[in-house]
């Protein structure tokens, strides 16, 4: 194993000082003096209604109110969205979820803004709501469809557009016929329905698959909506100056996406939009794309010269930013008597909410990963993204993987029990291995699930007896769950980086990748330092600023170490090239005879013959004149060979890798104790093994696993956004509980590097999201092990456990 000077080491976070001193500024911390106005948003109380009229005169006449905007204003912009343009910033003629923005007020104080909201009169005409994705998917008003290509788009070459002729039909449609909506070419809306994406996968022949099965299991699993609960609420500040330049300060995982969506939605060229990222107080996917930023822009455009500031309350963050979609998952799976899974038929009904501009892609990823990390020769998958009058579903850590693994990993245990095989052995039998064909027909490489299962098995003592219960009324259980995940991104998701040297030899690392807590700032600096051969203390990773930092697609998908890391690596090589070139000339040796280490360019055959990087970073003045110039390292990266999937079969087309540059595999084992009288589950220990290719920073990597486990545990035991006719009943921390320090188990974490990623920087994959994926099903399987009860709907509250236990006792089992 190669020894690196910083890669693999637990370098202290380079943003730690800012954060422990309070110096780090988050969006709401920014202050801009007296010409700052506060924003409050008037929101729909109805889950589904037509807006008949809006009268804002009362608000406009209130002293201290400077501007009011509604969806009818020209400044409000058009339809926008990442993968499907189905969303307006302020509702136009219709509201589709409780909390949807209807009007915005900018006023001198928050109090005046709040008063003004009360003076806005909105007339609604309530429409029937859709609250169930399974029923919602059945509505079909079968219109005539005409598909046409739209003009080439920057991102989605070959974006297409649906035009439909309406026809009569029954049932409520949220987005009538999806007429005129543009979407990415790999998204397939079904006009005349509430299905904004139908992902289909057909591998092999499902009927013959089931014919081979000795055991077939059919089960339905339920996943409720949950919310990211970043401790920093969403917020944004916009300034539109008198010359027409728009500046946005945002807590964002996607400054470039924010710029793009705003540019298109408000028709402003990108050179006139600048998105500046503050420190981000947690993202988890909820601050990807655009949620809050668009709300301030129309107000800013009405008030040139004013800083327009919006800070969402916790209650607003809960229900009006992204939530994680709900899911009804129907699985029918067959195994032969040797214990091999032969066929799986999966129907996924995603409760995707009122707008699915982002959710459509989770539907796709959930669909092509519906095998779980296992080899299944025959598959039939239908994954439906269904519009409902619920809060807007968006990406949350795992991007459909936690949701589908909740179902898949319990199904695995159910099958194993029917066969009489140990659940861990059953997973070993079926695990994807080198060369296994994925669900979309591509041979898998670096499929290291088996390594993680074996490591977890040993560490947790799977084959040894479980600990005894700590009291007679308690029961212990142990459960396993596995997972895999690939970054879900378009085949052309780009990263770029610039290394800008300063006169003293220090370096600014410029990238629009966001550090949302995962440690990207530090990891990217480590990659640069390692490649450049300079001390990491010399590198500052700047915060994203779209005017100055080069393009980064988004900080999502656990892709930054891999993708931005590659861009940084290339930028470092480019800079090293320039330094070695000048250095060799200064030292009077051939180019191939120098190297860089510890901040010096040195001659390979005489290490003391050297010149400091700082002395040549701006070029070098010789007797014969200057050589070199300020060093600027430039790097770009787009993953190679990513190809599409067939519209009807989901099988790879193009002879490439398919949609995924790599998969990360992991296994978790949960040891729990259950109080059989109260139903309370206490998780005593989680053993987690992940194969990550290359650990860039050991402590930071382990910290990601810790954080993911606790989010997974929290979602397993506590979390559900309770929705009643579209209205959230628990959109605050009083009644939406997340794990505290007193809920944490012992966490044994194993990081494996058995399969370095060939095109990853130093072999690195990604790990941030996989860490949350298997925790909930591992606990569910442990619960079954402890008490023989299986809970198929999250969360596994004490009340549900007790009820299930009593039901089991009543049945005399």
């Amino acid at each position, binding site marked *: 194993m190669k020894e690196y000077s910083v890669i693999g080491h637990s370098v202290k976070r380079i943003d730690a000082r800012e954060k422990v001193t309070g110096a780090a500024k988050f969006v709401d911390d920014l202050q801009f003096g007296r010409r700052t106005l506060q924003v409050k948003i008037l929101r729909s109380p109805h889950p589904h209604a037509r807006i008949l009229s809006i009268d804002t005169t009362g608000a406009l006449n209130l002293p201290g109110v400077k501007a009011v905007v509604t969806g009818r204003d020209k400044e409000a912009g058009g339809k926008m969205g990442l993968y499907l343009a189905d969303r307006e910033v302020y509702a136009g003629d219709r509201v589709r979820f409780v909390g949807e923005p209807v009007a915005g007020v900018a006023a001198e104080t928050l109090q005046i803004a709040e008063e003004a909201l009360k003076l806005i009169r909105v007339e609604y005409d309530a429409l029937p709501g859709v609250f169930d994705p399974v029923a919602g998917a059945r509505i079909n008003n079968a219109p005539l469809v005409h598909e046409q290509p739209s003009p080439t788009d920057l991102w989605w070459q070959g974006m297409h557009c649906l035009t439909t002729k309406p026809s009569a039909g029954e049932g409520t449609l949220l987005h009538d016929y999806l007429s005129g909506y543009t979407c990415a070419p790999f998204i397939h809306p079904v006009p005349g329905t509430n299905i904004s994406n139908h992902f289909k996968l057909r591998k092999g022949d499902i009927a013959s698959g089931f014919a081979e099965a000795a055991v077939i299991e059919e089960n339905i699993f339920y996943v409720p909506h949950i919310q990211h609960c970043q401790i920093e609420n969403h917020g944004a500040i916009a300034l539109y100056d008198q010359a027409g330049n728009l500046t946005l300060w945002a807590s964002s995982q996607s400054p470039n996406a924010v710029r793009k969506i705003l540019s298109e939605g408000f028709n402003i060229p990108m050179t006139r939009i600048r998105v500046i990222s503050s420190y981000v*107080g947690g993202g988890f996917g909820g601050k990807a794309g655009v949620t809050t930023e668009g709300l301030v822009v129309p107000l800013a455009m009405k008030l040139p010269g004013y800083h327009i500031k919006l800070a969402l309350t916790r209650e607003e963050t809960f229900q009006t930013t992204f939530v994680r979609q709900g899911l009804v998952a129907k699985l029918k799976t067959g195994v032969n008597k040797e214990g091999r899974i032969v066929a799986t038929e999966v129907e996924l009904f995603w409760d995707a909410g009122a707008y699915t501009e982002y959710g459509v892609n989770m539907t796709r990823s959930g669909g092509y990963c519906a095998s779980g990390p296992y080899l299944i020769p025959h598959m039939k998958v239908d994954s439906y993204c269904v519009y409902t009058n619920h809060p807007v579903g968006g990406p949350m850590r795992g991007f459909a993987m936690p949701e589908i693994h909740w179902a898949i990993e319990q199904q695995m245990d159910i099958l194993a029990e029917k066969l009489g095989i140990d659940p861990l052995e059953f997973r070993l039998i079926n695990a994807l291995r080198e060369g296994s064909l994925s669900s979309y027909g591509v041979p898998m490489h670096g499929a290291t699930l088996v390594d993680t299962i074996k490591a977890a098995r040993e560490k947790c003592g799977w084959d040894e007896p479980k600990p005894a219960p700590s009291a007679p009324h308690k029961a212990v259980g142990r459960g396993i769950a596995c997972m895999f995940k690939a970054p879900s991104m378009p085949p052309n998701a780009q990263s770029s980086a610039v290394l800008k040297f300063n006169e003293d030899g220090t370096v600014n690392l410029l990238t629009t990748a966001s550090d949302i807590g995962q440690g990207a700032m530090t990891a990217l600096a480590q990659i640069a330092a390692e490649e450049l051969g300079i001390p990491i203390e010399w590198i500052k990773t700047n915060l994203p600023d779209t005017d100055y930092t080069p393009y980064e697609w988004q900080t999502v998908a656990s892709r930054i170490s891999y993708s931005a890391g590659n861009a940084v690596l290339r930028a470092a090589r480019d800079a090293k090239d320039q330094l070695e070139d000048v250095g060799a000339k200064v030292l009077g040796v051939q180019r191939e005879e120098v190297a860089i280490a510890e901040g010096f360019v040195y001659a390979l055959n005489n290490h003391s013959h050297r010149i400091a990087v700082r002395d040549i970073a701006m070029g070098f003045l010789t007797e014969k004149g200057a050589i070199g110039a300020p060093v600027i390292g430039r790097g770009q990266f787009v993953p190679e060979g990513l190809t599409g999937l067939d519209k009807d079969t989901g099988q790879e087309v193009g002879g490439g890798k398919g949609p995924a540059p790599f998969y990360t595999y992991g296994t978790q084992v949960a040891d729990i104790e259950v109080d059989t009288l109260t139903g309370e589950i206490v998780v005593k220990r989680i053993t987690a093994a992940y194969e990550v290719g290359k650990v860039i920073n050991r402590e930071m990597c382990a910290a990601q696993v810790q954080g993911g486990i606790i989010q997974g545990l929290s979602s397993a035991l506590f979390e559900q956004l309770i929705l009643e006719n579209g209205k959230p009943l628990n959109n605050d921390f009083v009644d939406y509980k997340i794990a505290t320090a007193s809920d944490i188990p012992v966490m044994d974490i194993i990081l494996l590097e058995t399969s370095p990623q060939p095109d990853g920087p130093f072999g690195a994959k990604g790990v941030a999201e996989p860490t949350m994926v298997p925790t909930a099903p591992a606990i569910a399987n442990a619960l079954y092990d402890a008490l023989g009860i299986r809970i198929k709907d999250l969360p596994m509250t004490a009340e549900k456990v007790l009820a299930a236990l009593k039901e089991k006792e009543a049945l005399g089992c």
Partner: protein
Amino acid sequence: MMTSKAITMKVNGRDERLTVDPNRTLLSVLREDLELTGAKPGCEAGECGACTVLVDGRPVNSCMILAVEMDGTDILTIEGLGGEGALDEMQQAFVDHFALQCGYCTPGMILMGKALLAENPCPSEDEVKEFISGNLCRCTGYENIVRAILAVAARNRG
């Protein structure tokens, strides 16, 4: 009708004389009037602890306190720790033990660590966990935070 009130409070060792409206929270006055933005508005309902400051040595949710009540009190915010480029031992421990990720809950957590060790210099792991249960963190999973606080306690025991 609302009469504002003149208050004097010591903040991070400095006397601050302010005139504030009674309907302003301590959190809002710290952040806006004194530009001490280390205490954060995570929920403004006393549930998340991101607004934690020490008042007369005791940790409180500053979002649940009216600023006018603070006349004559001694307040410590995160900005009052360390100084002149040096970090307080608790701050340093958080750095050394990777006890932070996004950093938003961090000021509150550090102040809780200080408050705990001031009243209980040798806490058990369970006591630390219980003490900080009113401080929510979504990033770290808490383990490294607990370790950092215990490390400071262990060092002080000699």
